[in-house]
């Protein structure tokens, strides 16, 4: 790729590198993916920051998003107008937040926004039901859906207002297995102590 590319100026690339988790190569690759979605709409030259937005319908055809049940919500969350039309800035932002190297805290914030369908800063029972329906494509019966939502609220709602505020959500996600960091340092200390005990036993055995 080197210095021959004319899509972005050096300052733009540097700004992208600072504001996202991508390297230069990845940003240029993202731009070519963005362009693939709507070649007639997106120009090759972005040096003067054109204000182009790709509509929702085209973005959700991307293979990374196509199979995701929350694809519409994801794109809407990252769009500035809330309708799902992404400029290139929003596009890069979206993938930066979802990529491997972005921290869990950032992902938690965006996850909360994605699951909050009515955008009232709470995940209420209605939001939960919609999430569950999208997830299972309506294969659960009405009663089962209600039961599952009740149980989920029971598990995560801390302040007792029968909906999840961001602090509830964050607390719950921090304990979810893939996100769990709580006390792992503590338990590796435990492991070390067990290790030392083993060593000691070996020493005693030999002596």
């Amino acid at each position, binding site marked *: 790729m080197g210095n021959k590319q004319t899509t972005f100026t050096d300052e733009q690339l540097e700004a992208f590198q600072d504001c996202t988790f991508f390297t230069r190569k990845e940003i240029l690759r993202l731009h070519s993916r963005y362009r693939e979605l709507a070649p007639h709409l997106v120009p090759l030259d972005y040096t003067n920051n054109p204000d182009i937005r790709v509509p929702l319908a085209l973005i959700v055809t991307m293979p990374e998003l196509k199979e995701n049940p929350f694809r519409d919500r994801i794109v809407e969350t990252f769009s500035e107008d809330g309708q799902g039309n992404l400029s290139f800035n929003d596009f890069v932002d979206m993938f930066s937040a979802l990529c491997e190297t972005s921290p869990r805290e950032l992902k938690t*914030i965006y996850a909360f926004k994605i699951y909050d369908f009515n955008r009232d800063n709470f995940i209420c029972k209605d939001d939960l039901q919609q999430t569950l329906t999208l997830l*299972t494509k309506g294969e659960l019966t009405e009663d089962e859906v209600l039961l599952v939502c009740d149980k989920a609220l029971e598990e995560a709602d801390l302040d007792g207002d029968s909906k999840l505020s961001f602090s509830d959500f964050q607390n719950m996600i921090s304990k979810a297995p893939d996100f769990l960091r709580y006390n792992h340092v503590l338990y590796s200390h435990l492991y070390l102590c067990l290790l030392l005990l083993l060593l000691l036993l070996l020493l005693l*055995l030999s002596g």
Partner: protein
Amino acid sequence: METDAVFFTDRSGRITSNPLLDQLPSYQSLLYRRKSSVSGPKRRSSSRGRLGSSSSGKWNMSTFTRPFEKQKSQVTEQQPIRELAKPMAEKRRDKTQRLEEAQELTNWRQWRQSSRRYLRRLRDDAQEWLSSMKLWRGDIHLIEGMFGTGILSYFSFLRFLVVLNLIIFLIKFSFVMLPIIIAPYASGNITYNLNDAGVCSVYPSSARRGLVIFHEHITDLLSGGGFLEQTYLFYGYYKVDKIHFTNVTYNLALAYLLSTIAYLFLSLIWIVKRSARGFKRNLVQDEDRFQSFCNKIFAGWDFCITNENAARLKRSSLLYELKTDLEEERIKQKIADRTRKEKCRIYLIRLILNLFVIGVLAACFYTIYVATIFSQEAQMTKIKVNFIVDLIYEYLPSIVITLANFITPLLFSVIINYEDYSPAFEIRFTLMRCVFMRLTSIGVLLFSLWSQITNCEEEPCICGYNHLLYSCWETRVGQEMYKLTIFDFITIVAVTIFVEFPRKLIVKHCDCGLAKWWGQQEFAIPQNVLEIVYGQTICWIGTFYCPMLPAICTIKYFFIFYIKKVSLINNCRPATRPFRASSSNFFFLGVLLIGLALACLPVTVSVAQINCSHACGPFVNFNTSWEVLPTTISQLPSGAQTLLFALSSEAFAVSFFVITCLAMFYVIALAGAHKRVINQLRDQLAMEGRDKRFLIQKLCQAQRLSPVRSPVSKSKPRSPSYHTSFASNFSEGVFLAHSPPDSSTHV
């Protein structure tokens, strides 16, 4: 739960937004990316530093007042811009703002900042380069996209084992084999072990003489005997005692022993380090099925899936999981409703079935014992019947172990249905039984070998072992381990070629009932993991007797990766019973640790207890292999000697033990204290939430009562939150009974 009608709903039942609520700082931290009517001041007062640090999880509260903002911005300077949850344009603005602020700083600070940024970018590039060097990155990525993260964890586990075995081999090679190889070139003088012409040190050569038929070579290759016996492959070849180079003397016997200890230690540390990353279970208190519904709804979908079939299957597996959880709730209810009579009946059935399982295990172990003894005797008599029959005699223990490991899981999964446990417990219990079966069978094999080795005609044995039959018993044990490894590999390849591929063909082309009942192959993660852990345990045990075994295992796992990958992509569909990746990480490494513990046991016993053979190997001059260490220590300078003796004395050992116990208890107590604090905080949070709602209700009532007065009452509402009775005692108006306390959690 009390129903507070704080949020006034309109006719349609929808919650109308309350302007007061929108001004709360906790709401503003989640501004949406809209060019909405959100005013400027609100934007700025959104806490930039809202992102809590990962370790403490604290919530940086911002304040309304401007003067504090400058302070705040300096504190949050540490937070890289890209970790903020803002649109790109705002991040760019922040960046230029920070650059401007940076101009105001001194030169030293500027330089520090820019160097920090440069280092960060360098580190990112280095990490990217390193990760691109990872083995099989593209293949694993492909598997992840097609089958999800559950199966992905199996393959990354396999990759981990390949690298681990390679490192173990490098350790053994560089400390044991390399000095012997380079000795002639580096002008080293090798002193071999003295052959005192006693009975014990007779080692007949096992090389075949005369005309060697072709298939005997193959027998040798597969069984590690014949021409392979006196090579670098086995312990017996390393008869070197010391190598004298120009300046140093290299004690090979010591190096052999220490490299064994080193690789066991290294494996332990590496596995523990890896498992600490994904450790879920609380050792002190069992939080079984905590948050299971929330986890499935919010963290259940695998965002890496790009394949349509995989997405469909993931959806159905999530559905299955949810239905299973609902089923578990029902079963829990049923269990709670059990009568006394039913309980007795269930316990009786469980007792009988467990006895049956123990009986089956005992029968398997006895069969392995008998097979091993028979195989050893058949090899000793050296009566060649037939090429094939000879091979079968050689491989009899392996065959029996493999058959037992094939039949018992099926048996266990049938039995568990009658024991009436909850579904999650059923899976775990069956798995535990299979793990026990697999790993103990190796132990039984070794035990039967040793009983043969230490079984002489006249008790006690002259040399400490049966020198007539086993002039070099370590090589014999090494050969058994070698055979187990080879047979394991052959089994995996054979099962893939002769069972999985035909199954796919039958299911695809044949429409008969058999095909429908059998169904398409599912990639059963637990069984596959047990297979490779079994192989790795053999490798750990066998490396002491067969130093080149890790290299063989590396090559074996390398090929297994590709075989499994091809079989997976062509034959398998993802499991309908999902296996969660995170808990599976713990499962894999937990089983591997059990295997390591089990592997340490035979090695320790044979090093410390059993007399090493006097005819071969580096420890000829010693009684047991361990003795080389005390002998070396006694040759060290006296200062080092006293230090080492002090370290291994009882006084030190006891005090070390006591200190370690204290440390453990401290850690456990700390965990308990943290738990209590968390429960307290949770209760306090619930109370604060209720206070907040109560106060807003009162404020709204007050606003409605006096519409003239503007809602300037933005002063921080203090709540007497420590008195729970207040909340229910008031009917109207805001009434502060005490002077407002400065609560640290006030909103």
